[in-house]
């Protein structure tokens, strides 16, 4: 019994629970366990399956009291690296593609410069028909390539954001069990 309480006490210390509160909870728990034992009630009957996991029990109790922040949900913790990895991969691929496009110029993805093409010569044979105006859209080889640059810029920003997310995730991970 006392071993269970001691393990709880150690977990509260590790989690930064203030000493007076930890002592209060430890004293209440020790008294209840002792009384239960005197009544012939097992720790499992009093604590349920928590009797086999004092650290989780202690953490849950402190969290529910609002003494420490709630532990993050495990599914999110597990899924987060996958989502982050996918995001980082997409950003990196975008960066490479944009860089290749800029370096090779092939295929050229540029905004087309539109202008009115040269008018056909006026034909006196049919003077009533107005000369057609053709809008000839030409790809201007000398035009800048804003799409590539935008892609490159977005990829760099996304990679920076991903790096920040990885850093914050690394800091928020609970310490490994001793």
């Amino acid at each position, binding site marked *: 019994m006392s071993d269970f309480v001691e393990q709880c006490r150690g977990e509260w210390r590790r989690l930064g629970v203030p000493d007076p509160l930890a002592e209060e909870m430890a*004293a209440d728990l020790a008294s209840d366990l002792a009384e239960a034992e005197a009544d012939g009630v097992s720790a499992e009957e009093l604590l349920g399956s928590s009797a086999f996991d004092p650290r989780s029990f202690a953490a849950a109790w402190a969290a529910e009291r609002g003494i420490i922040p709630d532990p993050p949900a495990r599914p999110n913790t597990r899924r987060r690296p996958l989502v982050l990895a996918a995001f980082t991969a997409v950003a990196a691929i975008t960066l490479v593609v944009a860089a290749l496009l800029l370096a090779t110029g092939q295929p050229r993805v540029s905004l087309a410069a539109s202008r009115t093409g040269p008018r056909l010569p006026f034909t006196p044979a049919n003077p009533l028909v107005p000369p057609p105006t053709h809008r000839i859209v030409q790809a201007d080889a000398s035009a800048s390539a804003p799409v590539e640059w935008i892609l490159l810029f977005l990829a760099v920003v996304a990679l920076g954001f991903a790096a920040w997310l990885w850093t914050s995730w690394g800091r928020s991970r609970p310490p490994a069990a001793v």
Partner: protein
Amino acid sequence: MAPGPQRRTELLRGVLDLCLLAVMDEGPAYGYEMTKRLRERGLAIVGEGSIYPLLGRLERDGLVETHRAASNGGPPRKYYRPSSAGRLALALGVSEWRAARDSVDAVLAPVKVEVAS
């Protein structure tokens, strides 16, 4: 389908806070005393968890008031009793529980239970 003990645990989880408020409303009680009162009514805490985190939550939410007092010759214990907010929560919770129980009963009542011997 969840086996019997697991279902019982899941059913209890949703109303254990009400049960704790109810037994401490009968008179201030400390942790183990509450489990004894529950046990006397056939409600044993089995399966996951225990009442302590739940008591912590009730305390954090302001649904219980606590004080320390000596138990019968034993060490000082932390006694719990419902606050005014806790009594209101208990009344509302009991009302919800009865409505849910009646609805489930209406569905399950026609079912004939035959237990093979």
